[in-house]
């Protein structure tokens, strides 16, 4: 933010967790609106990046596993509601993804993790597990091959999400205070 010369007191958010959580909520709402309204412009064969998953992984890396799981659950429910999907399906996948991302949480080193290629690897890993779970539950009742479907949609969505995660990584990387 300081790089953009916008008057913004970052320490205010760092010292005040409730304010930070409100900020996460607002960002989640904005990302879900972006997902519903604008992502169709960047869809490749109906595959779109999962912006709320990136936010969930980010929160898990900054706040830890415990808070991350609640963030994953809340953002999943929000995603299910705005995308008219089955309520709970994305919440389940994102909660588990946040649980996994929480293992990479290191107190005081979140900026270093998010601002490096490690963030992309974590997003890829969590995205893979997220999509594995999500597609498993919804392909199961159908007479189609889960591995084939996952290889088509799951892997593509994971890779696209990883590409989208490059932007927050670069932003955090630029604002690093070494």
């Amino acid at each position, binding site marked *: 933010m300081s790089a953009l010369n916008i008057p913004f007191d970052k320490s205010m958010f760092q010292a005040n967790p409730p304010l930070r959580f409100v900020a996460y909520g607002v960002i989640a709402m904005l990302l879900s609106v972006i997902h519903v309204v604008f992502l*169709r412009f960047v869809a490749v064969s109906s595959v779109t990046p999962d912006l709320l998953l990136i936010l969930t992984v980010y929160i898990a890396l900054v706040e830890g596993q415990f808070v991350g799981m609640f963030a994953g659950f809340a953002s999943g429910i929000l995603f299910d509601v*705005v995308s008219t999907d089955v309520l*709970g399906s994305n919440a389940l996948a994102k909660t588990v993804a946040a649980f996994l991302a929480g293992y990479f949480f290191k107190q005081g080193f979140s900026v270093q993790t998010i601002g490096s290629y490690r963030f992309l690897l974590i997003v890829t890993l969590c995205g893979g597990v997220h999509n594995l779970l999500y597609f498993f539950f919804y392909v199961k009742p159908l007479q189609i091959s889960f591995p084939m479907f996952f290889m088509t949609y799951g892997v593509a969505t994971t890779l696209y999400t990883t590409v989208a995660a490059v932007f927050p990584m670069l932003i955090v990387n630029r604002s690093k205070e070494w």
Partner: protein
Amino acid sequence: MQRFIAFVVRFKNYITLGALVVICFAFMSFGSLSQLGGFRAVIVGSVGWMQSMFSWIPNPVALKSENLALRELNMQLSVESAKSRQSMVENATLRKMLDLPKYSDYGLIAADVVGKTTTQLRNYATINKGKKDGVEEGMSVVTDAGLVGLVIGVSDHYAVIQLMLNRDTRVASKIQRSRVDGIIAWEGENFLTLKNIPKSYDVQAGDAVITSSFSSRFPSNIVIGRVTQVTEENNSLFRRIVVDPAVNFATLEQVFVVEFVADAERLLLEQQSEEGSKQRTHR
């Protein structure tokens, strides 16, 4: 007690994960969002409003695809136009001769697609017509090419359509040529599948598939698609029949809502019969 608290504190992450997963499964057991009634109408209205605000932004990829599809459709229509003129004259004469009842003409409500929700196995579209325009839940939606889907949610100015490419969609249908009945379903691919057709029945590639009068939700004789592949499957009494949908869902922009709502008396009777049958089975 202290040991219990220490246990909870130590394993709080696993306990929280377990609790959240249980809550997720509980939510999933509610089924689709359609069961959330009024809440959904608010969401549908809000999302539809937001999508319509930005619907003026052109999507070059979709426009290119639509342009190509329209050119192909134009060519097909010019050929079929000549054929249909001849058929109309012939049809009118034959109807008069056989004294067949005329098909009911339903009113059509034109609408623009202002949003599409793509979650691979459940595809929905939002249109800019709602209750105040006469759209009701349960009405079917078509284009000039064929059947698009079913209205499953309505707010004052918007409606959500469950597209044919949705795993919840099941349509009673028949082969136009041989009048063989089956059920159209979607299993996540780029095509539809015609189910419940025994191996001995007459179905060939190229046959047109239309809605059947057995359907309590859709008006009959609406084009669904064309059979592209008929496969004999081992260990099954039925054939695997692949149907190419008549509608290009990737370029869907204008649709018509058919002012046809299923006969409530018929639905009630079918429901009662089904419940009675279940009760007899349990006895």
